[in-house]
């Protein structure tokens, strides 16, 4: 199971440079998710790896082979596409078989592999159907099967779940994850859905504007976003971001929000010691507020604010409070939410040690 590395990749479409000097390296067996908003260059990067596009400059290595100028079929990887890209005129069996057409395998080896993949993905009863006769989830499985039979070390997925409905998406997520656990292959997976990224990845590369904003494990990315973009992009409801001013005294560092609330930053792991009066952006995740009207033992700050809306999803609830004319989202238990009627005021604590700080100028984590 080879490593994959991108070295100084440049990609331009005509005069527009989409990727500029991008470096990224995936270990073998990693499940790398490329996560980012639409148009940030994820598909471009994946297609460069697959050989469907040519790099303008730079080098792509798979294991210790330089594959930059190889034909797609010779790179030893398999890809699952967003729209599945099944061959509509071939049966499922034919689809799987065509995937092997470049390899000059003996007939029975081909059949063996197809049988193996079909069993693994539970699509054996579908082998003689055409893609048009399959449901979304089944098509998805066939698409994965077509990649599986090729028996390669690197799998590429380009937003493979975005055409499925919520329920199926959850199921397929789990299946892909399971497959990765079983096959131990290297996977590069593109998505703009953070839930997918968080649940599946062993490593996430968050991209924006063709630049990798942060590369790390899901926990690192969620807990310690490297900059404002990552902070705002990851998490739903999104992290509450507020301007504040740092107050650095000898033993204590605090941040004062515009509304006057003071946030205690005890225990915050500053990259370098901050100066007094620095303008910062404070990031407060909605789930790091204590239960409303319940005093926490260690609170970093306490807000008393009017309720604007509550949103319930059955298992969860979000309450929107009004702070400085902006909404402050916080997560509460569904039972608690029903008590929080719009208009009433409520006191909530922000839990100690959970805040994120970003430089107001550069947007970088402090």
């Amino acid at each position, binding site marked *: 199971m080879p490593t994959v590395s991108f070295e100084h990749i440049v990609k331009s479409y005509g005069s527009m440079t989409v990727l500029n000097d991008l470096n990224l390296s995936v270990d073998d067996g990693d499940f790398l998710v490329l996560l980012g908003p639409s148009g940030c260059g994820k598909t471009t990067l994946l297609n460069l790896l697959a050989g469907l596009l040519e790099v303008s400059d730079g080098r792509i290595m798979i294991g210790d082979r330089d594959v930059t*100028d*190889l*034909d*797609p079929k010779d790179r030893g990887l398999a890809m699952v596409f967003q729209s599945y890209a099944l061959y509509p005129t071939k049966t499922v069996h034919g689809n799987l078989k065509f995937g092997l057409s470049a390899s000059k395998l003996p007939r029975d080896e081909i059949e063996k592999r197809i049988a193996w993949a079909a069993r693994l993905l539970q699509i054996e009863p579908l082998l003689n159907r055409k893609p048009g006769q399959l449901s979304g989830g089944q098509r998805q499985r066939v698409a994965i099967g077509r990649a599986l039979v090729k028996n390669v070390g690197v799998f590429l997925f380009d937003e493979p779940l975005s055409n499925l409905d919520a329920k199926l998406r959850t199921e397929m997520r789990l299946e892909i994850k399971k497959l990765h656990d079983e096959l131990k292959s290297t996977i590069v997976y593109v998505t703009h859905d953070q839930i997918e990224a968080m649940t599946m990845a062993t490593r996430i590369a968050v991209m924006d504007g063709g630049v990798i904003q942060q590369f790390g494990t899901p926990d690192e990315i969620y807990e310690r976003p490297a900059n404002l973009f990552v902070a705002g992009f990851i998490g739903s409801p999104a992290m509450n971001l507020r301007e504040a001013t740092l107050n650095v005294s000898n033993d204590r560092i605090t941040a004062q929000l515009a509304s006057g609330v003071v946030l205690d930053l005890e225990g915050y792991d500053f990259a370098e010691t901050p100066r007094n009066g620095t303008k910062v952006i404070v990031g407060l995740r909605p789930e790091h507020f204590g239960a409303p009207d319940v005093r926490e033992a260690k609170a970093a700050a306490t807000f008393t604010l009017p309720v604007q809306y509550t949103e319930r999803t059955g298992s969860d609830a979000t309450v929107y409070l009004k702070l400085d004319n902006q909404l402050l989202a916080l997560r509460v238990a569904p039972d608690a939410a029903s008590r929080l009627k719009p208009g009433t005021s409520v006191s909530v604590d922000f839990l100690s040690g959970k805040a994120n700080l970003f430089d107001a100028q550069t947007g970088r984590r402090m």
Partner: protein
Amino acid sequence: MKTMRWSRISPQAALIPAVAVTLVAFVGSILWTLYLSFTRSRRLPEYDIDWSEWGRQYDRLFKDAGWEISLRNLIILGLGSALAIVFGFILAAMIDKEKRGESLFRTVFLYPLAVSLIVTGAAWRWILNPTLGAQAFLRGLGWEVDFNWLAQPDTAMYAIILASVWQSAGFYMALMLAGLKGINSEIWSAAKLDGVPLWRLYLEIVIPMMKFTFITCAILLSLGVIKAYDVVVAMTNGGPGQSTWVPAYFTINALSAKSNLGYASAAAVMMLIITLIVFLPLVALTAWQQRKGAPR
């Protein structure tokens, strides 16, 4: 150093026949024709150019009343045949609106495409014949109509337009029908709910939305108009006088009746130049529109 990718070579190899055909059969022939248009070739090509008089075929062409008539008729035919698009659209809109009998009407409107005009031209000439055809028939019913289009130089083009509209309207109907079916059905629902009058919906929404279909039709139509020959031969054979000559007829007449290859070549070159002048902007416009429309 880049290795040559097989996936680059094979498609280019597959294009070789087409490129060869284009370069040899079309570009080569066009250049050849251009060359001949400078010579004094008559029935067979001659390859000497008298440089003092290289433009003599063109001089003759510009002075030729027949050529002038041909150009004028080209415009008339173009405008007139455009009726086929309008008619095709109306038919398509109605068929699309009223689903009953769709397949019957479709087939009926399409069949003229299958029959060569040489065959139906005879029928049309009869129908337009004042003593045998529709005029006599209608007069027999007591209606005083004047339908003798073929006899008069100033109306003969109408007969040609009639026949060509008859022949091609079905084809444009099929294209328009496809265009109409491509329109999001929710647009119709929205308009129904808004209570928008049907004519306004067509005029302000549907027709502008079918811009590309119309452009396609226009391109195909102009292709037909520029090359129009059969319909003229079938309906009037150029007459009365030279009143229904069109450039293609002129060219072929120069080639066969006049046995003047040089002259025919000059006319052909002019046809090509007209094509370029008229259609380059159209093509550029389409390409530009498509690029603009693409990111939607």
